[in-house]
């Protein structure tokens, strides 16, 4: 690890700490607002604290429906993205072939270009091809931009798993399938799961593309967007916001721990 011999200058410490505080305080604020007794405005400090909005939210069928759709879309998109992303990463990292760079660019493009372009492009394609909106139109879009997350994770790991491991396995008598099952999969498994977790979080949270591909359906982010633009019951929105933060927290932490341990294992090969 590189580190300067002296400790950090005070100014740098303050700037870094302030930056981190800027990133986190707004999210913490969400937690306070979930308990406020104030119904009509965003008044600070909250006039009182209550748990009643949790019960109210619990009994709202529209929230449950939106949550259900979001989970379904995220799960299917993640599976598709994991398959496509892994295949692509394997191809790009195993061999040097003409057009490798182009493939990388193609995978990155759906998130490098603004989401609204992906969204309206899909919408206009559905329009031209007369495809009606359905859960599958949402999934089509989500899987497309989730591929890159799985791809990035897998490519990084493939790079670390030294190429001679595959040769060693074949040399010792394992055919292609056995090599995949006994050597490749165990070594990239955690990176794939981590990529999948992040893809899930990305899909679960996506709103920009979804507004163009959902038609009348409501995923949880679309439900929230509706509430932000035309608030009906602000405290319910507060509670949902807090739950969303907590729910996305888990896969992200899991992905972090998976790749951290995994890298130690894979890195110890040499």
């Amino acid at each position, binding site marked *: 690890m590189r580190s300067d011999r002296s400790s950090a200058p005070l100014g740098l410490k303050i700037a870094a700490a302030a930056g981190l505080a800027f990133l986190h305080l707004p999210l913490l604020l969400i937690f306070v607002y979930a308990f406020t007794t104030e119904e009509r405005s965003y008044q600070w400090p909250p006039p009182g604290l209550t748990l009643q909005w949790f019960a109210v939210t619990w009994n709202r069928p529209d929230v449950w429906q939106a949550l259900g759709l979001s989970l379904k879309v995220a799960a299917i998109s993640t599976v598709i993205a994991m398959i496509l992303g892994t295949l692509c990463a394997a191809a790009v990292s195993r061999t040097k072939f003409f057009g490798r760079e182009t493939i990388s660019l193609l995978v990155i493009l759906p998130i490098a270009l603004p989401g609204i372009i992906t969204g309206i492009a899909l919408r206009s394609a559905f329009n031209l091809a007369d495809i009606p909106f359905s859960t599958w139109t949402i999934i089509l879009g989500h899987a497309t931009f989730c591929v890159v997350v799985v791809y990035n994770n897998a490519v990084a790991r493939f790079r670390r798993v*030294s190429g*001679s*491991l595959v*040769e*060693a*396995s*074949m*040399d*010792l*008598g*394992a*055919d292609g399938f*056995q090599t995949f099952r*006994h*050597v490749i999969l*165990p*070594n990239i498994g955690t990176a794939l799961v981590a990529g999948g977790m992040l893809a899930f979080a990305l899909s679960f949270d996506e709103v920009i593309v979804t507004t163009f591909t959902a038609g009348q359906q409501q995923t949880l982010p679309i439900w929230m967007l509706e509430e932000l633009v035309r608030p009906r019951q602000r405290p319910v929105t507060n509670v949902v916001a807090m739950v969303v933060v907590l729910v996305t927290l888990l896969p992200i932490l899991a992905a972090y721990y998976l790749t951290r341990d995994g890298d130690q*294992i*894979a*890195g*110890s*090969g*040499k």
Partner: protein
Amino acid sequence: MTTAVAFEKISRHFGTVKAVDAVDLDIREGEFFAMLGPSGSGKTTCLRLIAGFERPTAGRLSIFGERAEDVPPYRRNVNTVFQDYALFPHLNVTDNVAYGLMVKGVAKEERRRAADAALELVKLPGYGARRPGQLSGGQRQRVALARALVNRPKVLLLDEPLGALDLKLRENMQEELKALQKSLGITFVFVTHDQGEALSMADRIAVFDHGKVKQVGTPEEIYKTPNSRFVADFVGSSNVLPPDFVERHVGEKRWASLRPESVRLVAEGPGAIAATVISSAYLGGTTRLGLDVEGHRINAVLPAGEPCPADGKPVHISFARDDLHLMDEAG
């Protein structure tokens, strides 16, 4: 004597790069064979051709008399010790060693016993439960060796087996590998760029340059009678003498090689050649002198204890005609 591996006009071209170019080679059963050459000379590609990681673009490859060009690595009874060892990081030492038996469907108890025996053979008993990451470089290499030997290969390939070890470890390992090869009787083929290693370990050596085999022979043949300037230059520290020099003193217009220990310092007289000392290096057992002889650089080795002339001093040298080895290349 059976031929273990035979190359007949084998080429491996990568686009316009001729990594291996029309190579003929016979490796005999039970011998310790070295492929020596600078990096990029094609020796490693030859090893990978035997293992099956590469396929020849032309020529015939046979292993123990059977054609092998179309046989994938997992159907060749040939195993490799990789330069970076390529131990599976997710498996412990026992599972690494037993991997070959596992994919062949050998029962768990039996492969455990075989793995333990193989670890015993490479002097790492009791290390089975460790992970490759917890081993030193030398230990990893022993595991890699055990992992290859446990499959009882007909040919064992070693890619720069000692390259990553430090000097003392390397010397120990040289002796051990040689002893192991003698006791097991397996054909060993190893790749190295270190001529000392090749000379001390191998029964026979093939010297590679630019995708071609320059010379095949015993260490002594290669060392004493190199057939080309390249071999003389690359193997050992022979003096390479140009045709005009050789013509003046021996009469034939040919390239020649002369080992430094054959050069003697003598008093002025008939047959003696005038020289100037330009450098001297004390090497413990011997002293190496750098001499300027008629505009050519010639190295000489003096035994310890002999008086060493100072730099810049004029001296005279001579050598026995028999020690001068004329090479095939004409002037």
